[in-house]
Each structure stands twice: as C-alpha cells, then as structure tokens.
C-alpha cells in the first residue's frame, strides 16, 4: 500500500486554495501548545512548592532497599551477649523462635563445650565466614587478604586487620555488611550476626508448633492418620487451628479484619442504595412537582456528599467507637448523596411513554411505578451500586486506617511497629487480592443483571 504523494508546488497550490480551512487547523494547533506550556510552568512551580530537591537529598533509598529486602526475606540472629553470658540462635531474634543448643542450623558449627564458651563458626552466604571466639569476631572472605577482627570486651570496640569498604567503623558500634544477606554488629557487650534467607519465615506454622517444617505431603498423611497429636481434636482440625492461630502471621486475625472491611463496603453500599433510591424519586422533577421539598432533598444530597467520607468517619468514630459499624455508617451517609444524585438524574431521564401507557390501562400509581419506571432505572441502579461497591472496598480500607478498624487499621499497626515488613507485604497483597476479587465479582454481576455485554 503506498500513500499518494504530492510535490512541493502542489502542496503550495493546495495551501493557497484552501487557506481558510487550513488556517483553522493551524489555530487549533496553537492552544494545545499553550496548554502544555501552562502545565509545564505549573509543574515547575509545584516542584519548588513541594521542595522536591530537598526531599530527594533527604530521601533514604538505602532504607527503601532494606525494607524491600526485609519484606521478602527473613533473618536468623546469632547472638553472643557478653553482659548476660548468653549464646543464642533465633529466627528474627524472637524469644519464641530460638533454636535448641543441640539442634542448631547446619551453617552454625560449635567447637567446644557450648556456644558461649567454645568457638562458633558461621558459614555466610557470599563465601564469607564469621567466627566468634571469646570476645572477638573474625571475618574471613574472598576480598580480604588478612582477616578483619573486632573485639567487643572492653569499653570500646577495637579492630585489627584488613578494613574493607563494607565495614562501618565506630568505637561504639562496628557494623559490617559484605553482601545484602550477610551482616554483623559488634558493640561493647554484644556480637550479633544476621544471616538473611529468601522467603517468609514460619508462614504456615509457628516455630514451636509441632507441624513446623512438615511438607504438604506429610500434612496430608497426618490429617488422615488416627494417631492424634492433640487428643482433644482430630488431626485435620489441629492442622487448621495451628495455621489459623499462627502467632507471627495471625492468619485468623487478618482474615477477620478483611471480613470487617468487606462488610463495611457491602453494607455501606446497600444502605446507601436503598436509602438513596426513594429520596431520588423525591429529588426528581418529573415525580415530585413540589419545588421546595425537591430543592431541600437535592441540597441534602450535596451536603452529605460534600462533607466527605473523611469528616463523616471522624464524627462516626466519636459516636459509635471503633469497628465496622462506624465504617458502614460513614460510607452509607456519604454515598446516599452520591447515589441519590445519580439515581435522580436517571429518573429524570425516564421515558414517559411507558408510564402513560400504564396509566391509559387504568393502572394504579403503584403499578405504574412498578412496571413503568422501575424497569427503566433498574439497570442504572444495579450498575452504579456495583461500581460503588467496588470503589467502597478501597474506601473501607482507608476509613479503617483512620480508626474504624478492619484491614486498614491492621496495616497501620504493622507499619507502626516497623519491624515485620513481611507482615505488611502480606496484608498489602491480601488487600489487593480482595479489591481485585470485588472488582471482578461486581463486573460479573453487573453484566449478568443488566444484560449488557460490556459495562
């Protein structure tokens, strides 16, 4: 396929012949350029109004990387505490996830009577080896010609040997991190080694649970065996309750919080839709000829919509306390305004012929509404309610974070402790899955109920 081409003289002739038409085209070309300039100027103003250069200077990208790592990896602490005469290997340093002295992980080797008095060799990931003996830590590795030694016993930490770039030297705290996955801190009373591993630790079962570390095949076999672990319940129930009650991950609590959020969105939207519909009839000019009440209802819609969900939820949290009911009220009140307005517009656009047809057969007012009006506004009613159901699932997480409860509050809590980023990621993933599921469900219902191929 080839385009029709015109020579330069031909173009000139066409330009002259259709000057008025092409002139419009050129003028139309000017305003987008002007608009673009305006936007660029505005963004430049905003760039400095929000003090972006300062923000970039102060931002902690390294912190972001560590957070990212922490949310997809876990660390095992190997600690020698000189003040408390203690040696411990524990997942995330948790008291409840401490390895027994005779069952240490295979990358920790103890030579001598025990971990505190003897020598501990720790095999790290990047070919490095950390050795704790007495009060000193020795690092050997591929890029070290002589071992780096830090000694913790005195008032200050002292060091000898080759000092690589990945060591942070400070008499109060020497910190070394040869790779992202190997890290050690030496302070005057303590040597603390962290070794990182990919994955979420003890996601299914607590460290101390008898089920920890079992494969799914083992669990399956266990569920069907008559040999009860807990004499009070069947193995299948035990397997479930151990998972549900996992202390680190709190699957049961997270599920309950998600349920609260979904309840908030669902009930809030239902109440808004069913309160908004009758009010919408009162706000529609073709059904309520009385202007004063119509005006009042419309301003009521504008008011509850304009006050905003943020303010409503703050007021309702004061009145009803924390919990899903508060969220339901906030969503219901705000969306009564939004949905009421949308419905009343739909009602005003109703085709009057069907109502008149019903009237000519002598139908009562109620029958006229039922068969003349409702079938016309039902598609709008259903599709808008479902749209808002999906959007309110998102709003419910936000209201939750303000204090109403549910998954939003759970998220704020885990963020505040700032320790378990893997829990935060877990909650974020679950929230996203719920929102996407609501989106898919409401889209599917919308197509089913309104009989439209696409929304």
């Amino acid at each position, binding site marked *: 396929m080839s385009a029709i081409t015109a020579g330069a003289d031909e173009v000139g002739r066409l330009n002259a012949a259709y000057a008025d038409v092409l002139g419009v085209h050129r003028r139309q070309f000017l305003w987008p350029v002007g608009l673009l300039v305006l936007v660029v100027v505005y963004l430049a103003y905003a760039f400095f109004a929000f003090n972006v250069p300062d923000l970039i200077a102060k931002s902690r990208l390294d912190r972001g990387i560590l957070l990212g790592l922490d949310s997809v990896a876990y660390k095992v602490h190997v600690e020698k505490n000189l003040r408390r005469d203690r040696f411990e290997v524990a997942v995330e340093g948790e008291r409840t996830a401490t390895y027994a002295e005779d069952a240490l992980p295979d990358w920790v080797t103890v030579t001598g009577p025990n971990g505190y008095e003897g020598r501990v060799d720790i095999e790290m990931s990047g070919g490095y080896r950390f050795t704790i003996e007495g009060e000193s830590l020795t690092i050997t590795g591929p890029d070290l010609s002589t071992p780096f030694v830090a000694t913790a016993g005195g008032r200050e930490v002292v060091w000898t040997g080759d000092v690589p770039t990945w060591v942070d030297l400070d008499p109060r705290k020497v910190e070394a991190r040869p790779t992202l996955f190997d890290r050690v801190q030496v302070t005057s009373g303590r040597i603390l080694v962290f070794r990182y591993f990919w994955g979420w630790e003890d996601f299914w079962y607590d460290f101390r649970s008898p089920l920890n570390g079992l494969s799914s095949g083992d669990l399956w076999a266990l569920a069907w065996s008559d040999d009860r672990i807990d004499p009070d319940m069947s193995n299948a129930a035990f397997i479930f309750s151990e998972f549900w009650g996992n202390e680190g991950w709190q699957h049961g609590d997270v599920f309950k919080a998600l349920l609260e959020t979904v309840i908030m969105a669902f009930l809030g939207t239902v109440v808004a839709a069913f309160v908004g519909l009758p009010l919408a009839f009162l706000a529609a000019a073709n059904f309520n000829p009385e202007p004063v009440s119509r005006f009042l209802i419309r301003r009521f819609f504008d008011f509850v919509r304009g006050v905003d969900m943020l303010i409503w939820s703050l007021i309702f949290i004061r009145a009803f306390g924390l919990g*899903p009911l508060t969220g339901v009220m906030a969503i219901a009140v705000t969306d009564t305004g939004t949905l009421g307005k949308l419905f009343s517009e739909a009602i005003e656009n109703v085709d009057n012929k069907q109502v008149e047809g019903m009237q000519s057969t002598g139908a009562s007012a109620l029958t006229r509404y039922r068969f003349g009006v409702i079938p016309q506004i039902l598609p709008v009613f259903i599709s808008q309610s479902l749209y808002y159901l999906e959007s309110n699932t998102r709003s419910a997480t936000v209201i939750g974070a303000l204090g109403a409860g549910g998954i939003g509050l759970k998220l704020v809590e885990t963020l505040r402790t700032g320790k378990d980023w893997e829990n935060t990621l877990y909650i974020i993933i679950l929230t996203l899955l719920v929102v996407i599921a609501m989106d898919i469900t409401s889209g599917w219902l919308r197509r089913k109920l309104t009989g439209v191929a696409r929304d």
Partner: protein
Amino acid sequence: MAMTTVDQLQAHASSLERRRRFYTGLGAAIFALLVVLGFIGAEEMNSGGFIQGLDNFFDYPRAIVVETADAGTGWFDLLWVYLPALIETINMAAVATIFGTVFAVVLSFAGTRGLQVWPPIVPVARRIMDVTRAFPELILALFLIFVLGSSPVPAIIAVAFHTAGALGKLFSEVNENIDRGPLEGMTAAGASWTKRMRWAVLPQVLPNYTSYMLLRFEINIRASAILGFVGAGGIGTELRKAISWANGADIAALFVLLFLTIMVIDQISGRLRRRLVGGMFAGAR
C-alpha cells in the same frame, strides 16, 4: 418443525416464568440473608453499640459548634490561617491528576486493541491498569512516607499511581467506543500512525477524557485530604492536629474550608463536564 399447540406454549411460558421467579426470589433471599448477617456481625465487632452511639451522635458536632460560637468573629481569621494548607492539598491533587492522566493516556492507548499500537502489549497494559487501580492510595502513601519522609510527595505519587489505573480503564473504554469511520478513512489515505491518532481518534476521545479527568481531580482532592491525615501534609495534617488537641473552632474552620472547596470544585467540574459531553454523566470512581 414439530407442531406446537397453544396450550403447550402456554405451559412452557409459565414454567419459564416460574423458574425466573424462583431464581429472583432465591437471589433476593441470599441478599437479605447477607445483609442481616452483616449487620449482626458488624454490631458484634463494633466497640460501641449502635443504640447508645445514636444518643451521643450529636455530642461531637454540638461541641464543635459551641466552641466555634465562643470564638466569635475571630473564627473567620482561622479560615485565612488554614488557607495555605488548603492550597497545598489542592496542589497535591492537581499534580497527581496531571501525572496520573499522562500515564493513563499512555496505558489506555497501549491497552486498546483497535488502536494498533503493538498487539503483544495490550494484555500487559490491561493487567498493569488492573493492579494500579486496585491499589488503595493509602497503602502506597504509608509505605512511601516511611521511605521518603513526611511530605506531600509520597501522597502525590500514591494518588497518581491509583489515578493512572482508574483513569486508564475509563479511557480505554472511551477508546473502544469510538466511531471507526474516520480511522479507516485516514488509513485509506495513507496517514501515519501519529496523524491517524491526532486527527481520527483524539477529537473523538478528548471531551470524554477531559470530563473523566475533572471528575478524578475532584476525587483526588478528597484523597489528598485523607492522606494528609496519615502525615502527607496539607489540610489533612492540620485537621489531625486540631482533632488531637480538640480545638473545636479550628476543626470547624477546617471542615468548612474542605466542604466549601469540594462544593465549588464539584459545581465547576459538573458544569464543565455537562458542556463537554452533554446529558447525564454517570461517573464511576
């Protein structure tokens, strides 16, 4: 074709009718059950009950109104004091809307089959829109505040991120519903892809784009105010301070400012949108 008597037809029709009624009834019953169970559950999980809550529902607004009345004419100065915070919130929303719209246009063009951008990218762009749309602004904002520190920028990024997906979906629906006549005409005349988009597609989609963008701007003002509440600056931050210090007059001033802004923007954008696309405009958030 087999002969069918009127009786048979009638029997068939009434059986269909009965089945339809049964399914409608079943659906309604399940729906009612869900509502009742939901309310029972919500009432149980709430820390304060519904009935005693109703009694003190007006306490808080009353306290605010009383303190505002006590402040007298000095209260109007407060509106002036908080104006910069309001402007910051509006700026946050505006910048987020601009960036969000730009990304949304790119995503929606890439995600529409009929626009012949590059077929393999269509499903990719659609999935990206699904995911960014599902992100509640708050989640991303909280995370970014942790990394970048308390400032409006994390909120802007979070709001823009969500806007890209939400607007992208609406834009790609607009793209799919265009009249393909002009596009075919331009293709037949041998116009390049840029020219086809500029002269056959943009004039058709721009009014709808602008109208959706205005609607989004209004929503983003609300979102920015809420994000201020978790430390992103602007009017939300001031509101949280006022609430934790229980300054009734300040709370009232901030409520009024927020309310007026939303009302004004709502009215202006409503009018503009009606002029752009005409008739009823049912917007989805």
